[in-house]
């Protein structure tokens, strides 16, 4: 609650910071400092007084995921140093909209009422549509914004339709109210299940799972790099946290009715994500498809929610976000928004920038799921959660497709270490964000308990 207000106020400050020349220079610094302070505060409000508990329940789950989202956002603001230079005077506007996105994300991870879930999703999505189109001088950025907007509005329609069905069946928007209704009604009306499936479609779109993934590659490719990294990390983690919170809070008792639909979606996501990624030559598109594939593994945690898989989801989210953000930080350091960056252009990085090459390798290994990096334990945890619940076939498919994944991640690593086409100058520096991300991948891989003891 306090956190939500503070983030929104920070966004408003950022909107108005453009008024004075001296303030404009330091907007980003102010935001980073503010976000660090808010992150610190989140840890103190672990068990604070609740103000509207029937709307936003700031429990431990919400606090943990809020912290994760705030940390990722802080790193993205650190990374965004020269990213909005095409519109120097109005930088503050973009920062402000990004902060409103974070505010929407906080609503999405702490909601206890479907109205708040919907408001959160809308605040997040509407801000993202604008951000995707923030390079007005580039055609592909406008195209990305337009595609995202049309398909996103369509998915929101499904979600809202589902919420209306659920309300029609239960007469309440509150998550605990719905759960009580499910408990106390022996014969649920079919309209309730229709609602569950429609909500699931809306949320599967937001997490870019197949068969609702078609927007993701184009939008990731067209959006400015910094916005893509934001979408692939903070937004994805948020969407999964909301998905898990809703289904474990309200629909856990009817999970034998929706798990088959989810299993099919997971199978498609794993197959399409991993096999299409094999054919990609552009680094950004490869990361987009790897994001789709990773959505499949994270959905396994949602599938296994009957036995509290929130630990596994949290661990996987952090390991995926760290690896993905690190990869995007490398991409941002070597390319600009204007043209497509091919994987083959990475050639010679081990000569020109050995330090970054090593860190990038760690990040890619973590993504591929090689022990002792965090990515391996993340996959291990979601898989063991799913197997414990008896979903053997889909877990086997997940293991097999993750082997496919190793191939294309190693293609990137091979490019980094192959000989350069031209003579290059050696420089030995890496972005601080790449450092932090590689560090997180190693540390939580070595000490998984750091994360697992949070709950």
């Amino acid at each position, binding site marked *: 609650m306090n956190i939500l207000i503070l983030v929104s106020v920070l966004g408003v400050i950022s909107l108005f910071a453009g008024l004075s020349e001296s303030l404009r220079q330091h907007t980003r610094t102010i935001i980073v400092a503010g976000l660090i302070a808010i992150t610190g505060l989140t840890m103190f409000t672990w068990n604070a007084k609740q103000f509207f508990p029937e709307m936003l329940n700031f429990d431990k789950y919400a606090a943990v995921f809020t912290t994760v989202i705030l940390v990722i956002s802080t790193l993205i603001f650190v990374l965004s140093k020269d990213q909005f230079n095409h519109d120097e005077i109005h930088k503050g506007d973009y920062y402000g909209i990004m902060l409103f996105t974070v505010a929407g994300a906080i609503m999405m991870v702490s909601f206890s*009422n479907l109205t708040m879930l919907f*408001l959160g999703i809308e605040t997040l999505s509407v801000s993202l549509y604008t951000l995707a189109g923030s390079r007005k001088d580039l055609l592909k950025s406008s195209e990305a914004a337009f595609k995202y907007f049309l398909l996103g509005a369509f998915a929101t329609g499904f979600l809202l339709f589902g919420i209306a069905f659920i309300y029609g069946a239960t007469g309440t928007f509150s998550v605990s109210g719905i759960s009580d209704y499910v408990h106390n009604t022996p014969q649920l009306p079919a*309209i309730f299940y229709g609602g569950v499936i429609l909500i699931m479609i809306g949320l599967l779109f937001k997490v870019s799972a197949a068969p609702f993934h078609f927007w993701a590659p184009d939008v990731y490719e067209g959006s400015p790099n910094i916005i893509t990294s934001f979408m692939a990390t903070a937004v994805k983690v948020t969407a999964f946290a909301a998905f898990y919170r809703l289904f474990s809070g309200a629909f856990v008792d009817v999970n034998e009715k929706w798990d088959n639909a989810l299993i099919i979606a997971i199978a498609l996501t794993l197959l399409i994500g991993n096999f299409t990624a094999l054919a990609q030559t552009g680094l950004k598109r490869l990361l987009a498809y790897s994001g789709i594939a990773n959505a499949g593994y994270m959905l396994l945690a949602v599938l296994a929610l009957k036995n509290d898989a929130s630990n596994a989801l949290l661990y996987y989210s952090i390991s995926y976000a760290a690896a993905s953000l690190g990869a995007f930080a490398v991409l941002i350091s070597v390319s600009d928004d204007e043209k497509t960056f091919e994987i083959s252009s990475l050639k010679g990085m081990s000569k020109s920038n050995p330090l970054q090459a090593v860190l990038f390798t760690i990040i890619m290994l973590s993504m591929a799921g090689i022990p002792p990096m965090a990515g391996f334990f993340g996959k291990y945890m979601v898989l063991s959660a799913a197997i414990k619940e008896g979903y053997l076939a889909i877990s086997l498919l997940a293991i097999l497709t993750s082997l496919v994944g190793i191939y294309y991640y190693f293609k990137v690593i091979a490019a980094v270490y192959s000989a350069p086409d031209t003579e290059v100058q050696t420089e030995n520096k890496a972005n601080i964000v790449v450092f932090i991300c590689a560090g997180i991948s190693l540390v939580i891989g070595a000490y998984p308990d750091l994360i697992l003891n949070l709950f």
Partner: protein
Amino acid sequence: MLLYLFYILSAITVGCALLTIFSKNPVYSVLFVIATFFSIAGHFILLNAQFLAIVQVIVYAGAIMVLFLTVLMYLNLNKSVESSKPLLIKIAAMVSGGLLFLVLIASFKSGLSIAPTSVRGDAGLIKNLGNTLFTEYLFPFEATAVLFLSTMAGAITLTRKK
């Protein structure tokens, strides 16, 4: 009496919605959407929700669709420029749309009650609506401000000249 009114209104709603999709001329489509919105406002009145009915007419039929119409006329889009899709895509779209229709029909069949009965007859009156909005739903009401602020900032950002 009410039941007949409901059937007539529903027929108009569905008919106009279908005509929206089937008319070749975009301007006709918009006009049919306006007609659809008006008949939905009629449904709200049947449910004793006058405020919603007025808002539906003023905001949707009045403001938004007139904006649509103006844009269509500015861009001179009143010719049909429909690109033809491959047969396979048409069939796939028909099958998936039909499946969704089937699922919805099946889920509605059990819980179908046709007469317009609202849970509390006076829930849609302005007084009760305002009461709920400023007590129980105060927080979502305030949180909407963030959404609108972000939308406004976004609209200005996207339309501003360099």
